[in-house]
């Protein structure tokens, strides 16, 4: 083959292709989308499902975290509890009778209250229910300062006052009240072989779930009517926020100077946080499933683009004849692919945000849709669109104009 270069025409340098404006690039890139709406909708749907799943998972998790943080802020993280541990022989090591008193003497401790478990006392709705049918409600002797320390709120009625603490009066935890079928104060229940009057019902206690299923009676009443030995089985303390760790270090030794290792100290908010973290761990699994859906959607877009290039050889040839460069053809199909994918991305993000908002509202949570999730979602779809469209676009650009025009 011989191809003589020949003398260059003087105006050859002026033969530079013109660039398309951004608006024209977008307009040309959307030609294929506008002319085949059904196909576009279906391919975009594949992407939309993936993005919707991911955005929804992230937003639901963020809303749940926000709700949790709000709850934690309202109950506080500065509560510590002390419970009996075991001695070196493995026997339970009871706390001293004046343990709460000693804790209160630690300087940064703001307040402390104790409960004492009455293992043998059973609670019944009335006196003719068979003994076996107790409802799993624990009876606790409670110090009068318990609500302030733990942060208890009344759902109905009132907490024990000084006089009631000496008489057969009882406050029920929320589950305990539910199990007994009691909704209003004033009712009588059969507790430890005698009648007690319900003075109040507690709200749920997130930091002290053990109180939810308890029947709480006064310290003195417990001694008088149920033979309580006066030994606390749990001490609740509140400390200045900045001193929690310091107090935690000295609590055991304060309560039991001879055998501090026989005392268990814990921080209930840590348990809540751990539980929330376990719930959130599930999130990454769900996001992973969404990512797989997104990938499948990307394959759908690639497929659509391959078909588009095959079907539109004539259009490609015509555009080359009208003066489109290879680069402009490549850009056209890449733009189309990115737009197709972004369409799915935007639709999916809206769908996911809507679904998660609905869920959050149904849970009485504040709706939190992290903007970064929407941004990352739409950005990811555009990247997927570019990736999916790359090969078809390169193929379209490589088509020789004559071959494209002469049909498949």
């Amino acid at each position, binding site marked *: 083959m011989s191809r003589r*270069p020949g003398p260059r025409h003087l105006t050859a340098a002026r033969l530079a292709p013109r660039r398309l404006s951004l608006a024209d690039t977008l307009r040309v890139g959307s030609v294929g989308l506008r002319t085949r709406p059904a196909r576009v909708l279906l391919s975009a749907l594949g992407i939309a499902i993936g993005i919707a799943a991911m955005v929804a998972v992230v937003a639901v998790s963020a809303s749940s975290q926000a709700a949790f943080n709000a709850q934690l802020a309202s109950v506080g993280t500065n509560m510590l509890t002390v419970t009996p541990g075991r001695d070196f022989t493995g026997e339970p090591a009871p706390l001293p009778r004046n343990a709460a008193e000693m804790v209160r003497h630690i300087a940064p401790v703001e307040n402390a209250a104790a409960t004492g478990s009455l293992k043998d006392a059973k609670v019944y709705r009335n006196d003719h229910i068979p003994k076996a049918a107790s409802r799993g409600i624990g009876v606790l002797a409670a110090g009068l300062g318990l609500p302030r320390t733990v942060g208890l709120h009344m759902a109905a009625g009132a907490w024990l006052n000084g006089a009631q603490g000496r008489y057969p009066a009882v406050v029920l935890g929320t589950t305990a009240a539910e199990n007994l079928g009691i909704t209003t104060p004033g009712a009588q229940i059969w507790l430890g072989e005698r009648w007690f009057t319900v003075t109040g019902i507690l709200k749920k206690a997130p930091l002290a779930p053990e109180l939810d299923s308890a029947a709480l009676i006064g310290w003195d009443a417990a001694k008088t009517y149920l033979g309580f030995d006066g030994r606390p089985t749990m001490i609740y303390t509140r400390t200045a926020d900045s001193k929690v760790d310091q107090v935690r270090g000295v609590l055991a030794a304060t309560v039991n100077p001879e055998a501090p290792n026989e005392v268990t100290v814990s921080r209930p908010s840590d348990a809540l946080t751990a539980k929330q973290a376990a719930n959130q761990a599930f999130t990454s699994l769900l996001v992973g499933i969404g990512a797989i859906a997104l990938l499948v959607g990307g394959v759908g877009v690639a497929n659509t683009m391959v078909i588009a290039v095959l079907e539109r050889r004539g259009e490609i040839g015509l555009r080359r004849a*009208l003066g489109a460069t*290879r*680069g402009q053809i490549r850009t056209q199909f890449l733009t189309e692919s990115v737009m197709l994918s972004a369409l799915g991305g935007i639709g999916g993000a809206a769908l996911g945000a809507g679904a998660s908002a609905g869920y959050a509202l149904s849970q009485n949570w504040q709706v939190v849709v992290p903007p970064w999730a929407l941004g990352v979602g739409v950005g990811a779809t555009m990247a997927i669109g570019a990736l999916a469209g790359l090969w078809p676009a390169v193929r379209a650009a490589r088509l020789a104009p004559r071959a494209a*025009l002469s049909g498949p």
Partner: protein
Amino acid sequence: MTPAPAGAAPTGPAPTEPALVELEDVDHVYPGGVRVLHQVSFRVDRGELLAVVGPSGSGKSTLLNLIGTLDVATSGTVRIDGHDIAGLTENRLSALRARSIGFVFQQFFLADGVSALDNVADGLLYLGIPRKERRARAARVLRRVGLGHRLDHRPHELSGGEKQRVAIARAVVGDPPLLLADEPTGALDTTSGASVVELLRELNAAGTTVLVITHDQELAAALPRRIRVRDGRITEGVPR
């Protein structure tokens, strides 16, 4: 129909001017070894209107594709508007097609679902002309080809003859000096075909150089010049 607008290509060759189309010893072999063109040489001056005729498979479309720079000759020289196309990069070829050459095909190649106006306006897209001006010029050309009342019609709402006139409008909207038409009447009935030929004549009268492939003997005979292709050789109408 009105005659040429101002600013059309000049009519008639000036003595010193290079030919608009010049082929020298052009051979073309398709991949697979089919030798389609043998030592083809001829020139077309500005302002000419000529028919390319010949039996099916003789190489007419191949010739037109080489002139239109849609394909590159295996050997020999093809010079268009003064440019030796073998010496041009892909991008410069694209620019040359955008500025100097208008194409009309038997199959129209109109975009479905796009109005006649926008189909024609696309003829200016790769010249980097803003959309508003593209559409204004497209409307003007459509009126000139007698389709002023069909601007908003989509291809499926047009007759075959109207479609081909839209395609011709798209080919000339950028005012290229050279118009190449490969069997523009091939898919049309006699009447529509005649109106398309009439349009090509008018464009030529307004200064555009027109090369038209046709199987229609009568049509070819009526044109000022004919090139006959047979078995890849030019057998008639060789240099004037």
